[in-house]
């Protein structure tokens, strides 16, 4: 719950927390939203209490309420990442077929996903590093391919400092041309017909630093770049 303070008061010093808090603003009232495993799940902690949003988890639930501590958990109630969650008034449970019916038939307004790589044409790779780590795609292929809007939350570079925003993906794809926006620990970047466009910067990060950490050209606006 400490994260909530970052939302209501001054900005966190931690760039990842700022990224997550900024991503939370992407959610408009009334949306149906799926938050992918990992960083995206943390977005839930940055939504104001009572915010009108229907959160979906692909293991069979709409209307996710706050995450629960171990002591209060219901053994039958997890999200797709295994976190113990709670119901809201109006929650519904359903099977895995219905859960993806919702995704594929266009009832999901927004999904936020993690990434190994994102390309400047909107391609996404997040399920397989051949020979190293192949966890499987879970529900990511359908989420990426069918949500009305797909955004990515990711560190701007991997642990070795290599860029994750690239001219083209090198890993097996999850979906092609579907990513609209990327939230990182340095910036907000849009995918446009011309490639990556820098939209916002985290306070204290320079355009030069972001460009150097990016594996493709960042198009700049002709106005000052807002910070977050």
């Amino acid at each position, binding site marked *: 719950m400490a994260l909530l303070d970052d939302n209501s008061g001054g900005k966190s010093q931690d760039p990842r927390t700022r990224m997550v808090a900024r991503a939370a603003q992407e959610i408009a*009232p009334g949306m149906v939203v799926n938050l992918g495993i990992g960083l995206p799940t943390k977005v839930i902690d940055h939504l104001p209490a009572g915010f009108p949003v*229907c959160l979906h988890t692909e293991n069979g639930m709409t*209307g996710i*309420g706050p995450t629960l501590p171990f002591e209060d958990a219901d053994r039958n109630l997890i999200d797709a990442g295994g976190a113990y969650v709670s119901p809201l*008034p*109006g929650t519904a449970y359903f099977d895995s077929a*219905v859960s993806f019916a919702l995704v*594929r038939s266009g009832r999901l307004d927004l999904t936020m996903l993690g990434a190994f790589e994102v390309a400047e044409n909107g391609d996404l790779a997040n399920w397989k590093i051949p020979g190293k780590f192949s966890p499987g795609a879970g529900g990511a292929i359908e989420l990426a391919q069918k949500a009305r809007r797909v955004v990515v939350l990711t560190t701007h570079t991997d642990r070795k400092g290599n860029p994750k925003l690239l001219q083209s993906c090198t890993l097996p794809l999850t979906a092609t041309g579907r990513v609209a926006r990327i939230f990182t620990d340095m910036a907000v970047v849009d995918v446009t017909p011309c490639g990556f466009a820098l939209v916002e910067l985290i306070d204290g990060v320079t355009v030069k630093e972001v460009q150097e950490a990016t594996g493709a050209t960042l198009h700049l606006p002709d106005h000052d770049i807002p910070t977050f």
Partner: protein
Amino acid sequence: MSLPDKTTPMEEAVAAISDGAVVMVGGFGVPGTPFTLIHELVRQGKRDLTVIKNDANEAGMGIDHLISAGLVRKLVVTHLGLNANAISAMNEGRMEVEFCAQGILAERIRAGGAGLQAILTDIGLDTELAAGKQVIEMDGKRLLVEPAIRADVALIHADQADPFGNLTYLATARNFNPIMAMAADRVIVEPEQIVPLGGIDPNAVETPGVFVDQVCPLVSIGEEYGVVRR
């Protein structure tokens, strides 16, 4: 987090249906037929409709009001033997009729609701219902390609609804309602009862509210919802 209220006056919900719309209508016989929504559709005189429904109801009931008023251009149906008006409209060429095997109609609607493009089946392969349909071969077997069906609007009768649109159904009034409630761009529900958010056990929800667009309060359950003496 909280869930939005989708309660809408029926007149307003039906007013947004266009002439020429493709309309799915729940129900199998009397149970589950959204009689009040149908009446409002007739009252507003929406025309040139394509109606997708299991059956044509009986003369003087349900979608027969649409058919008799000449508002139905095409009917996609599995059975219309109980409605002489529908048979006449078909035989006299006033209404186009497309017959579908009942379970395949259900699966095509479900496929539409599930965001699939089609199903492959051997049902009806040796019947005239297969005429004109794409056939493909899989593992040496011939199979019919039955395309998914979606509608512009689905008219649904439920037992209970909450304001978000979570629905329950009773007994054999369920039939086509849950699958149609997933397969339309706009899903309009007439529930017999509206309960507050949280009034339906989340394990008992049959149609998750995320599929539903408008919940229209019913003023009363009329005679036509009742037991028919035959």
